[in-house]
Each structure stands twice: as structure tokens, then as C-alpha cells.
């Protein structure tokens, strides 16, 4: 057992028992070995309901040691109720340092965003995943989706994108845009906005995706190719915030929240709260930006 001074002695270090943490870490290693492949794991009970971040907690608590610095973001915010509760829980169970600063953190748990600030090879980002099976929308049976992954049979996924384009004139997937990992498996990047999808590719950081309710772990290891699905003539695009500036910092080039003020008035604020704080207090942090195909042209 890991000896620390402050954490609650009523529970094992990190709440989960050591053998289960070991199993989860082994599943993570398997996920790293086969990028994009969903590895089943035991998904033990946690003191929160499934669907509220249990998968993320399993992965985070299996990784964290007393020397780690933990950060958690919920839709870009460090200060949402869910983020605060999960942070307090992790702090109580592991006695690790917690931070709002992206650059300081060694383990970052996130729901539905990747930080704007570039992550390094000293950091691990853990995604809370509600629905790990990207093919579920086109195939309801689990045994068939497994067979489709095994045989790289992704035609139905492609047809769903084709149908979206035909129906709406654009591929209408705002979050959870399907990506191909390491030129093999198609994977759900969890419901991150399209803005964040290019950040997964060739990153220095280890990305762990954990779905507690669905009992699946998968990963994108550092320096792995992650390509959003796109047709030869219909290219993948990130969200456009053309001419829009953050009402707090006056900065652009970040994923923005649109805030409703009145029928005629909207304002935009940078979604990543730590990124916004850093912009207010100093120079712009290191950031990866991706242009849309027509912008490049």
C-alpha cells in the first residue's frame, strides 16, 4: 500500500483496490499496444453513478500516485460542479496535488474537450467516454460491431456520413466525429468538438479513453496518426469562428462558447477556462491551430 499522510484511511489508496487498478493498467497497456481498439475491462463500482465520469475516474485513479498533479476539466471548465466534485474526490482518495494550470498537470481528466494549450510527453489525458462504440449508430448488435472492427468493414459508417452530406449539404457531426487511428481502427474520440479532433494526431501525449458504463478502454498513444473520416471531395472541417472574438480577452483562434444575452445579442467566450485565464494574465500559451481546407486554399 502507498503510504501518504493525509488521504482517507477508510479506503485503499485511490479508492480502487490494488488488483483492480493493476488490471485496469494492464488493459490500458493493451489499448496502447493496439491504438483505437476497445479493450473490455471490469469497471468496478464507484461512489458516483455510471455515466457521470466513472470510466475517467477508473483510469485516473489507476494512474495517479502521490507525486502526480491532477487537473480535471468538464466541457473546458475547471470549475463546474461535476469537475469540482470529482477533483475533491480524487484529492481525498490520493492526496495528490491538484491544479487548474494545464501545463502543471501530469494527469488530466476531461469531459468533452482537449485543452487548447499543447500537452507534452510528461502528461496523460484521460477522456470520459459516454459511448465508446462509434458504429453503434449504424449497427445495434455488439457482436456485429466487433466483427466489423475485426474485418475493418466500415462501409456503413461511411454511408452515414454520405447520408448526412446528402441530407444537409454538410456532414452534421458536431461532436464525436469518427476518426481512423493508425490507419486501422475507426474510433470515437468521445464527444469532443471537431475543433479538438486534429489535436489527437501526432500528439506528444498519451490519450486514454475510458467508458465506465460500457466497460471499455481504448487509447491513442503519442505520435500516432489520427485521421478524421473525409471524402475525397468533402473534406473534414473544424468549427468556424470567423470574425468572432472572445468578449473577455478580445482574442480569437480558440473554441468559443456562445452566450445568449438577448434575442439580438450573443457574446462569445473562450471555452477553455485555464486558457482564458492565461490569456488575461500574460502571453498566449503554446497552441496547435488547424485551418479548414478552403481557408488553406
Amino acid at each position: 500500500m502507498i503510504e501518504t499522510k493525509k488521504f482517507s484511511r477508510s479506503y485503499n489508496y485511490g479508492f480502487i483496490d490494488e488488483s483492480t487498478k493493476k488490471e485496469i493498467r494492464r488493459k490500458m497497456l493493451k489499448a496502447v499496444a493496439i491504438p483505437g481498439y476497445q479493450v473490455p475491462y471490469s469497471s468496478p463500482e464507484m461512489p458516483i453513478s455510471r455515466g457521470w465520469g466513472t470510466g475517467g475516474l477508473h483510469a485516473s485513479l489507476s494512474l495517479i500516485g502521490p507525486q502526480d498533479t491532477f487537473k480535471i476539466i468538464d466541457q473546458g471548465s475547471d470549475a463546474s460542479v461535476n469537475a469540482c466534485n470529482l477533483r475533491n474526490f480524487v484529492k481525498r482518495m490520493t492526496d495528490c496535488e491538484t491544479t487548474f494550470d494545464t501545463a502543471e498537470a501530469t494527469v488530466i481528466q476531461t469531459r468533452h474537450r482537449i485543452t487548447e494549450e499543447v500537452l507534452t510527453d510528461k502528461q496523460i489525458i484521460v477522456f470520459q467516454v459516454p459511448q465508446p462504440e462509434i458504429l453503434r449508430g449504424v449497427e445495434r448488435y455488439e457482436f456485429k460491431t466487433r466483427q466489423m472492427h475485426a474485418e475493418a468493414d466500415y462501409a456503413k459508417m461511411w454511408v452515414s456520413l454520405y447520408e448526412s452530406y446528402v441530407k444537409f449539404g454538410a456532414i452534421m457531426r458536431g461532436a464525436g466525429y469518427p476518426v481512423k487511428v493508425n490507419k486501422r481502427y475507426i474510433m470515437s474520440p468521445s464527444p469532443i468538438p471537431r475543433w479538438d479532433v486534429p489535436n489527437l494526431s501526432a500528439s506528444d501525449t498519451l490519450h486514454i479513453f475510458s467508458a465506465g458504463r460500457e466497460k471499455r478502454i481504448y487509447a491513442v498513444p503519442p505520435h500516432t496518426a489520427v485521421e478524421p473520416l473525409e471524402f475525397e471531395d468533402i473534406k473534414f472541417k473544424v468549427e468556424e469562428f470567423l470574425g468572432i472574438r472572445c468578449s473577455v480577452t478580445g482574442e480569437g483562434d480558440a473554441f468559443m462558447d456562445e452566450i445568449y444575452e438577448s434575442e439580438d445579442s450573443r457574446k462569445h467566450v473562450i471555452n477553455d477556462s485555464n486558457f482564458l485565464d492565461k490569456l488575461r494574465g500574460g502571453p498566449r500559451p503554446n497552441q496547435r491551430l488547424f485551418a479548414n481546407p478552403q481557408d488553406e486554399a
Partner: protein
Amino acid sequence: MVTENKEDWLLRVRGLSKIYGEPISNSIRYTGPKFGTNQCPETDAIVACAEIDFDLYQGEVLGVVGESGSGKSTLVQLLYFDQDASGGEVYFRGVDDGRTNLLNVSNQRKRYIRNHLMGMVYQNPRDGLNFKFSAGGNIAEKLLMAGEFHVGRIRDRASGLLEKTEVPVPRMDNAPSSFSGGMQQRVQISKAIANNPPLLFLDEVTTGLDVSVQAKVLDLIRGLQRELGISMIVVSHDLSVIRMLTDRTMVLKNGRIVEAGLTDQILQDPQHEYTQLLVSSLL
């Protein structure tokens, strides 16, 4: 009519069998037309097909007839890899120049062969079409599986195919559930021929359609066969369909071929007792 050049085969089938249930070594020996059943007397295993041998030649249309339960549909499902065969050998000229038994290749390779070299039109359009997708989406699925990822070209190809099969092109983006039975069948045909496969399976394609629609679908198939020179295996219990479409015919009973030959010959001068009964009862 296609001449049978022994070197000109497209599909070669030897000893193909499919047994449901728990077979024993004698299951095949104690079933078949001689015993009047395809159910093994000892284990109740069903011998759906056994000892199926035939060659299909380039550009030929081969008919498969027989009563319900004779193994016709099972045969084409085995050849299209919808089901796994219990034994036998299947060779296809387009795969390793006909030297590889397709029943032994990986599932991924079978899928590739299905998507690139074969097409299938099922009796029930729900088996061949995905009703969640539009008619164009169904055709796109087949093209995407074959590696076409250009939406513009996919839509051009889908429009051309729907036009060829007389489905109104403006309805390309409608769901097949809003189509009539005949139209659904024609969308299925469009999907099946989307990749210009050299081999097409047609499983009771006109069953359940009214007579005028049947005639349209049969005309369409015959026209496509002439235009594209596709080899076909046509399964039907309707001898008039077989007469209209096929060059050669195999008659199946209790999972075995009881007679095979030129269609005209089979229909005008049937040799086997069962074929004589079939011809006399249906004509």
C-alpha cells in the same frame, strides 16, 4: 447462348455441402433423393446441400430449380459467403487465377471478393437493402466498400444505375421503404451491379411481385445480362423465369443435383423422374 469452353469457366464448384445440426459420417450417405429426405435418420441433421459439382462459364446464365427446401437458396448463400459451407471447394477465375479454394480464405478476403467480384439480389429486398439508408445510400455502400470515396462520382454512378434500372433518379435520396416492391427490387439490382461484378446471384427475384412488374424486372435482368455480359446464377421455382433467363439449368432435390443440362433440353425432354414431375406440374 454461351458455348461451354472447358477453359472458359468463371466459377468452379466441387463437392459443396452444407449441413445444419450435428452430422455423422453417414449423414450424407443416408439422405438425398434416393431416400426422399434431407434429414439424417440418426441425428436429425439437415443436409441442405451435398455433393454439388458444377462449372459456371463466362457470360453464362445458370438456372437452379427445385421445390421448397431443396437447397436452392442455401446454394447461392454459400457461394455469396452469407453462410459458411460444411465442406467442398469453390474456385473463382478472378481470384488467384482460380487456384485458391474460396472457402478457405479469411473473412476479410471473402468480404473483398463479395464487394468487388459478386452481386446478390435477394428475394426479400430487406435482406439486400438497408432501409435506414436512402436508395442512393444503399448503392453508395457497395461503392464505398469497393474503395470509391468521392461523393460526386458516387452520386453520378448511383444516378446512372437507377436510370438504367428505371427507378426515378429524383427519388435517389428517398428511403427504399417509400418504394413499391418492384422498385425496391430494381434498387437491389442497381446495388448488386454497382461495381460491375462478373458474377451475379439472383435468388427468387420475382417472387411476390405482380405479373406486370415481374415481366419488367425480368426484361431488365435480361437486358443487363446482354449489355454487361455478367455471368448469373438464377434461383427460382418458376420454370417460366428459368426458361426466359437461363442458358443451362440444374435441378435440385433434397439438396442434390438430380439433373443438369441445357435449359431447353431440360424443359422439353426431362430425363429424371422428379424433373418430369416438376415440368408437367408447372407447364
